């Protein structure tokens, strides 16, 4: 493992020669061995200790320890600090060691993966870590790529190979890589062994989509690009084998360069705690200064005269110096106000909460066999304070499964689920789906509930036939038939997959295609259409068409596309049909379905011939090819005949609308940030009820320039303010106030608004001078949807809210494009779904269903927050009560830093006597049962408003602690001052006083924790009673004869416990102290509960009453998905189609079809790589339009 950690000189460029290990050795490139672990057995202790002492708290305690070794200062024995410190260091070290052990294990697993390396002309199995730069390795189908490789050759034609990059960028659709032509012929080992090309390329970097280099071979130069590279982390798919030359290995690979150290996240409670600790530290110094002055004055006035009996230390020559020393002494004994065990206890509690999350059966997804996982154990209580959720769409809200749900054919709508009486059936009471058994080629997974459509097909309705014929012809799906009748569709957009599958099941089976033909089984008869042209899809056209010639020789154009576009292009004869279809489209859109309109047009032979000729010429034109083609396409797609419309359901994840509704009730604002198109995003917004048709207005910002965006945002704000004014809900604001305090006004607007903003508008909106405006507008809206955003923009939006809103943000997503926002947000949640594991790896929490979010936040988060707050309040209280007694005692012992308690009590108080009960409360406490937190989402509010632990609560705890310490000191003082024991002996000796105060302190804080504990499980009982028992056991043990005999100078309190605690007056003192310390607390708590109950109190109270009455009434507000009420207001298009341009051309070129399956010879005319160029260009153009390369737009769906 050590060889991983070499230091290497920085590189200017990288030179790699194939098959020349000796040559490459000179450059000392990193080997392919990766190391994510931090320690080994030897370095663990020093390195870990070094790291731990970088923590301020630990250094502080080390400093105290050193202070204690100075005899003039030492007011405590050295072990009072060292025992807790060692305990804390050990716990942390054990945790670090286990973490590192697992990293070692995973490193080993990765490093020991096998790969085939070409060494001395033969393929040999090697472990990954032994692969060197310059080696040629062979990959087989479905293998992980071991390092960053230059693709040399593959089993596929033209040196193509397909890879899946899920682990790298989260996209699950396959990507194509191609070897450069000269090397693609090197297909056997003997020729590869002779390959001695040299690559000179860029130095290791983290840019996943860029590579530049040159291959020098046989005196020729070949330019290399990312298109020739296979990156570590990818998986080879659909390619039998390929060979690659290792360019970057191990830590130099782009994957590893990208996995930067994750930022360490702190919770807001952490930050508050740190501030408070600083304040407490300041307070400590103040106390020290007061007592030091006291000491100086005392030594000057009293101590100087008392020197006869108690001379000053030899080093001390003046009262002032004595005061100075006493300052340090007091710092030592008062240090327990900042208890070292605080940080460890907090970590332990959070760890416990993390385990509860991991163990939660209700967050386990049986289908994917994944339990929820708290990957970070330090953020739990922040889950109870979330105000903003930023959600990805695809894979998070939706399953990215498209289902053919409804259709409208020639003015009749099919697809409504009907019950016996013909009424629309509610969800959940579905009858049997339609039986497709007549069709041997049907896809068994396809479900449709309206038998009417199948009947129409079987009755031979020509419109329905034409409808499905269109669906089976007009697409870019590839089919694969492994066995007879076993069809697999490779669709590059899931929508198309759904449409073609629907056609397949209704008897129009798309069977096979060649570049020039499409074979369709129409109700059992194989018909081969001649494919004349594919008028490809793009985002401007929003439609695609095919021109086919049927066996009878008729030429027909089939077109599908957006309603907004197609309805304008219909033949006037369709007017009536169009209006009916529009009604249907509205209905579909209202249900959040994605709609497409289908149309056809017959073309005359002559016209087509002419058009085709012009098309051919245009496609060969050197300049403005695109424009010419577009114009030609536009010309032919006119005066079409309407066939109908389809509606596809973008399947939501389970329970998404319900979850969103509950989270909204909990006052959490949900923003959807998606790389998808606005249409799709809006559709999903409607289907998961973030947007409703009842909303006052949905603002759509699509401006391209700064001015436009600003204007649109301003208008939106004005409208909202107009709205709230016209609503006139007693909220009439003066103009002046409005203009000066815009945000506050917008906070209180009436009516529900939503904001949809586009990627390029967002880019402007996020600029420094507009971001506030944007934020104000967006925060005034109930729902915000950002579309076409890049991963970086996702992070920027999160950052913006974090910066100005001071609110806790949570980002949830499943793809690699969500990683940036997951890392930026306070809490990142990864959906462990289909899209790789990058998001999960970057996330703090992961589970497999969006709906678990409500449980994570409302149950786990809420409890964590509650428990942590109660814990902190109690912890500060108990330490102040404990420590401040020393302060009061200082005034009575000449400010000499004499402790009140036995030193063992001081050592053990925080780590034994009082630690476990409060830990048990911090881990197990519950105020209301989990079901109630779902029923009353408002219970979540205290966390968002920071009500349970803030500076005010802190001061209350401190005040309570100080109050307790005053009584704890002065009541025993009053009693002891001139009292005697029942047997006449002296009572007020120091040791008896110490035992009395310590005992009453332990009892008071135990009673207090008993009051604070709202949920007494057996464990709480055990710890609370156990702590008291342990206190007395240890007390008697420490004061026993045996220990004293062994260490007379250490255990001085011999016989004290039995002598002191036998006195009734001591017990009376303890009882009085307890009563006086506790009763005010009880009174205040009761009055608060009685007069100003929190929601949780009320819920608990009703729970109690309910339990008594044994009656049940549900108050759950069900939130269904039912699509009641038609859309109001202006018509809304339901168009959404995730498709990518370029595949039409790819199909027509035949490049993606196997050599065996077709006669390629006739298509060799076009340049072989042009389609790849086109694809890349299109994609590049797309992403420069500020869109996400992944998102939902382009994913493969195998149907």
């Amino acid at each position: 493992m050590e060889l991983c950690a070499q230091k290497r000189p920085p590189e200017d460029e990288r030179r790699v020669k194939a098959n020349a290990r000796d040559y490459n050795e000179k450059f000392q490139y990193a080997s392919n061995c990766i190391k994510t672990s931090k320690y080994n057995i030897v370095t663990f202790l020093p390195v870990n200790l070094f790291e731990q002492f970088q923590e301020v708290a630990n250094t502080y305690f080390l400093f105290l320890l050193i202070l204690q070794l100075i005899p003039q200062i030492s007011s405590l024995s050295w072990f009072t600090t060292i025992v807790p410190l060692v305990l804390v260091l050990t716990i942390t070290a054990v945790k670090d060691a286990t973490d590192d052990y697992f990293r070692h294990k995973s490193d080993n697993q990765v490093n020991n993966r096998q790969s085939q390396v070409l060494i001395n002309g033969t393929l040999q199995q090697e472990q990954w870590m032994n692969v060197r730069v310059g080696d040629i390795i062979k990959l087989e189908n479905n293998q992980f790529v071991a390092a960053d490789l230059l693709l040399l050759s593959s089993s596929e034609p033209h040196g193509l190979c397909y890879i899946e990059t899920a682990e790298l960028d989260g996209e699950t659709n396959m990507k194509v890589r191609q070897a450069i032509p000269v090397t693609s012929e090197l297909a056997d080992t003997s020729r590869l062994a002779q390959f001695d090309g040299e690559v000179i390329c860029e130095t290791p970097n983290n840019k996943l989509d860029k590579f530049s280099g040159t291959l020098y071979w046989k005196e020729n130069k070949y330019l290399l690009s990312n298109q020739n590279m296979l990156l570590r982390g990818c998986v080879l798919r659909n390619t039998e084998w390929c060979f690659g030359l290792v360019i970057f290995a191990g830590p130099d690979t782009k994957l590893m360069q990208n996995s930067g150290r994750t930022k360490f996240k702190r919770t807001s409670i952490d930050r508050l705690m740190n501030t408070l600790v600083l304040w407490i530290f300041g307070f400590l110094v103040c106390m020290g200064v007061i007592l030091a002055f006291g000491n100086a004055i005392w030594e000057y006035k009293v101590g100087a005269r008392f020197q006869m009996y108690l001379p000053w230390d030899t080093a001390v020559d003046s009262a002032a110096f004595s005061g100075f020393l006493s300052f340090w002494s007091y710092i030592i004994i008062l240090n327990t106000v900042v208890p070292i065990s605080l940080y460890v206890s907090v970590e332990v509690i959070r760890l416990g909460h993390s385990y509860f999350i991991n163990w939660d059966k209700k967050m386990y997804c049986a289908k994917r066999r994944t339990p929820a996982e708290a990957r970070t154990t330090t953020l739990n209580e922040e889950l109870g304070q979330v105000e903003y959720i930023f959600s990805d769409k695809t894979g998070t809200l939706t399953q990215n499964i498209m289902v053919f749900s409804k259709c409208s054919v020639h003015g009749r709508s099919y697809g409504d689920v009907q019950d016996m009486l013909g009424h629309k059936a509610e969800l959940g009471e579905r009858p049997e789906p339609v039986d497709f058994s007549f069709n041997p080629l049907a896809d068994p997974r396809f479900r449709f509930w309206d038998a009417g459509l199948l009947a129409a097909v079987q009755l031979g309705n020509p419109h329905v036939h034409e409808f499905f014929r269109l669906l089976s012809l007009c697409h870019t799906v590839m089919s694969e038939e492994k066995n007879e009748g076993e069809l697999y569709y490779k669709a590059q957009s899931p929508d198309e997959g759904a449409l073609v599958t629907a056609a397949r099941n209704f008897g129009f089976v798309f069977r096979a295609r060649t570049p020039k033909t499409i074979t369709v089984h129409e109700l059992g008869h194989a018909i081969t259409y001649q494919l004349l042209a594919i008028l490809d899809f793009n985002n401007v056209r929003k439609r695609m068409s095919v021109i086919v010639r049927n066996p009878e020789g008729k030429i027909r154009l089939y077109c599908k596309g957006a309603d907004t576009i197609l309805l304008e292009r219909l033949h006037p004869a369709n007017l009536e049909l169009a209006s009916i279809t529009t009604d249907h489209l509205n209905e579909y859109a209202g249900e959040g379905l994605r709609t497409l309109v289908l149309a056809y047009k017959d073309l005359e032979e002559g016209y087509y011939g002419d058009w085709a000729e012009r098309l051919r010429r245009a496609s060969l034109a050197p300049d403005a090819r695109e424009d010419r083609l577009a114009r030609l396409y536009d010309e032919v797609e006119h005066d079409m005949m309407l066939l109908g419309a389809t509606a596809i359901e973008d399947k939501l994840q389970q329970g998404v609308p319900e979850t969103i509704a509950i989270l909204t009730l909990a006052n959490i604002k949900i923003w959807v940030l998606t790389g998808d198109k606005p249409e799709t995003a809006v559709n999903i917004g409607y289907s998961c009820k973030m947007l409703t048709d009842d909303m006052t207005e949905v603002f759509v910002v699509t401006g391209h320039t700064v001015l436009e965006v600003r204007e649109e945002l301003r208008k939106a704000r004005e409208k909202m303010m107009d709205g709230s004014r016209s609503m006139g809900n007693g909220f009439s604001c003066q103009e002046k106030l409005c203009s000066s305090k815009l945000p506050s006004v917008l906070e209180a607007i009436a009516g529900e608004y939503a904001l949809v903003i586009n990627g390029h508008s967002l880019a402007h909106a996020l600029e420094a001078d507009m971001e506030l405006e944007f934020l104000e507008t967006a925060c005034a809206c109930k729902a915000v949807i950002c579309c076409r955003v890049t991963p970086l923009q996702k992070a920027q939006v999160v950052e913006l809210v974090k910066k100005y809103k001071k609110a806790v943000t949570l980002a949830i997503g499943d793809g690699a494009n969500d990683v940036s926002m997951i890392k930026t947000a306070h809490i990142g949640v990864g959906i462990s779904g289909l899209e790789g594991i990058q998001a999960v790896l970057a996330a703090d929490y992961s589970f497999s269903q969006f709906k678990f979010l409500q449980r994570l936040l409302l149950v786990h988060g809420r409890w964590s927050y509650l428990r942590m707050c109660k814990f902190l309040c109690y912890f500060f209280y108990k330490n102040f009560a404990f420590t401040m007694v020393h302060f009061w005692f200082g005034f009575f012992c000449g400010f000499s830093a004499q402790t009140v308690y036995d030193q063992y009590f001081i050592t053990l108080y925080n780590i034994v006597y009082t630690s476990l009960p409060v830990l048990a409360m911090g881990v197990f406490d519950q105020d209301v049962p989990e079901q109630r937190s779902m029923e009353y989402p408002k219970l979540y509010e205290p966390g968002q408003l920071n009500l349970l632990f803030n500076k005010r609560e802190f001061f209350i705890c401190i005040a309570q602690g100080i109050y307790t310490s005053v009584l704890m000191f002065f009541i025993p003082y009053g009693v002891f001052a001139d009292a005697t024991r029942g047997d006449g002996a002296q009572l007020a000796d120091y040791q008896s006083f110490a035992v009395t105060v310590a005992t009453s302190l332990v009892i008071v804080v135990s009673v207090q924790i008993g009051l604070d504990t709202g949920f007494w499980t057996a464990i709480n009982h055990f710890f609370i009673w156990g702590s008291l028992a342990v206190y007395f056991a240890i007390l008697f043990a420490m004061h026993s004869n045996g220990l004293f005999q062994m260490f007379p100078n250490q255990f001085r309190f011999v016989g004290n416990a039995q002598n002191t605690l036998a006195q009734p007056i001591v017990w009376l003192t303890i009882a009085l102290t307890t009563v006086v310390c506790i009763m005010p607390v009880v009174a205040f708590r009761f009055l608060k509960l009685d007069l100003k109950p929190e929601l949780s109190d009320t819920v608990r109270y009703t729970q109690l009453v309910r339990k008594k009455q044994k009656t049940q009434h549900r108050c759950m507000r069900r939130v269904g998905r039912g699509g009641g009420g038609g859309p109001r207001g202006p018509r809304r298009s339901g168009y959404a189609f995730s498709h990518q341009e370029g595949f039409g051309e790819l199909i027509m070129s035949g490049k993606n079809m196997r050599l065996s399956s077709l006669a390629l010879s006739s298509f060799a005319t076009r340049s072989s790589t042009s389609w790849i160029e086109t694809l890349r260009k299109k994609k590049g153009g797309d992403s420069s339009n500020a869109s996400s390369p992944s998102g939902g737009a382009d994913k493969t769906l195998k149907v």
Partner: protein
Amino acid sequence: MTSKSREDAQHPPSRCPDNSAFKQQKLSAWQPELTPASVLSGFILIGVFCLTMGVCLILSARSVKEVQINYSDKCLNCSKLRENSSNWNTECLCSADFKLEEKIQGDVFMYYSLQNFYQNHRRYVMSRSNAQLLGRNTDIRNSNCAPFSTYRNGTPMAPCGAIANSMFNDTISLFYYTNLSTAIQVPLLKTGNSWWTDKYVKFHNPTSHNLTSAFAGTARPPYWQKPAYLLDEENERNNGYINDDFIIWMRVSAFHTFRNLHRRLSRTEQFADGLPAGNYTFHIFYNFPVSRFKGKKYLILSTVVWCGGSSLFLGIAYTVSGAVVMLAGFIITAIHLKLKKRKTYFQR
């Protein structure tokens, strides 16, 4: 074992969490609630208890008879004499008279009380060697006794440390005037005043055939008149480190004003019932100067009851807190009844 591992191989371990009450956070639990009934009755009960307790304590404390004599002023001349260290060997006797109007019945305890004597000072508290007091032969130079550990010539002090050195060493005797001229000494017990554990566990004399040889090679602390083995010349078993006066002194006080038990009345002859009424005199051989640090010395004669001496503090504290708790209970009841129905969150 093997069958189990084979089973594991057949069914990959389920990742589904266990359905245990602990892991699902469904442990049965008692959820206490501050109900009006329990809180109000709690307040009244505790209030009643405290009041009763307070009255009992006050009555008990009032039944204690106590005489307190400040003799630091009366013996001012002795105090002045002592402060000059050259006079350490001269004896100074002073006496304090007082009259008992009525007799003190029962066990009578004699205390000395010091004011402004900071026995609870950190350096003072530390300045002792428990090992030495246990009779062990330890090197006291390593203990906290400095500067009272050894003399310049290296002779260790026995006992060492500031506490031992500053031991209260006034010799006090009490005389009772049976008539105007004749006074008889009141018999007082020197032993049995300290804790059993102190006398028999915490303190031991060094083992040797006699005490003198046990303390051989050591010297008395500088402020002592007599070496440790001569503290009680009459009683061999009350000598050296296990001398009761010494043990009591070594149990340092928590505050700078304190009283230590010094003697007990030996209830014999005319003192069988306690101290009869009449005139008394304390004869004090003054050895312990306090005036330099503005200290005060008292002698106290007192009886005790079950709850100790005459201090009224606890009784009053109980009465006051009992009253306050009761009052608070009534106020809370009033508030609760006035608002009658529990307001709910939803009604707000």
